């Protein structure tokens, strides 16, 4: 490992750790205002939706994004598995299997 790589690891580790840990320290010490608590109740659903969308759209900088059709097709059986079983494991396994099938039959 070169010296440059060492600095990158240290620098990136520090900024990442601070982003993760400082909020815990502040929340522990300070009383949060009501509006912030209300804002935060929406963080789980919004961030999970955005992360899901990340897998379903393809970015084209400067142009409108397009749909990742392959992922969208595989998402359908995965979502159905979730509705039927309410099990995270089932969603993941069905999703992977559906994607493998799509690729195997080159759909």
């Amino acid at each position, binding site marked *: 490992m070169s010296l440059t790589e060492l600095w990158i690891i240290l620098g990136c580790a520090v900024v990442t750790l601070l982003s993760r840990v400082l909020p815990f320290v502040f929340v522990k010490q300070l009383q949060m205002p009501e509006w912030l608590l209300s804002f935060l109740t929406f963080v789980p659903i919004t961030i999970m939706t955005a992360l899901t969308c990340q897998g379903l*759209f393809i970015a084209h900088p400067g142009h409108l994004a397009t749909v990742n059709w392959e992922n969208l097709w595989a998402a359908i059986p995965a979502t159905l598995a979730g509705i039927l079983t309410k099990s995270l494991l089932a969603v993941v396994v069905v999703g992977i299997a559906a994607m493998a099938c799509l690729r195997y039959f080159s759909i």
Partner: protein
Amino acid sequence: MDASLTFRSGIKDVLPTVFGYIGVGLAFGIVAHTSHLGLWMVAGLSFIVYAGSAQFIITSMLLAQDPITSIILSTFLVNSRMILMSTSLAQYFRHESLTRNILLGALVTDETFALAMNKQNQTAGKLSFAWQSAANLIAYLVWGVATLVGAYLGGLIKNPEQFGFDFALTAMFIGLVYLQLISDRKLGVRLQLLVMAFVALIYYFALGVISENMALLVATAAGCLFGMEMKKCR
């Protein structure tokens, strides 16, 4: 997923997400291998930085020989959503000691955060240090080991995509967001669906003008503000 908050149930609850970590971890290892990163660098990125998608960005910026400062700044921007997630998650651990809060915060990820939010829907809004630590530690170890295995085997696996493992991450978030939707009784299904549609719309249009990670942040923050307004209207 039941209401138990022991270390053991934490291990059980985190297992489904392990597929996502293995899939993406192997992929990262393979990318790192083809980008000529050594095993020590991969280990350093996974075990010391521990930053998921940011690791891909660090790798490509290293390959492009970008300056150290811009690599660090990009990492901060990509991970700034951690600030939102940690602030949210920390609400459940205010009664714990500062040391325990720091330990929990150090290993928060998209996945363990989402899992914890699903969990507290089953436990009337409670989480425990033992449960969260189990989820955090398993995620951390599986990620690190998967990336190293990927880097080690990098040359051997010619076409890892044919097994569909790259879809594990998206599938996992589909599962997590669906479980969140049906079990968050504080917000209700209708309001959440409305917020989800809004976030998807903002994300789609933002993607045309800013980077994926910035679009993620903008859509999340806009979605929270939109949700607050909609809740007031009801």
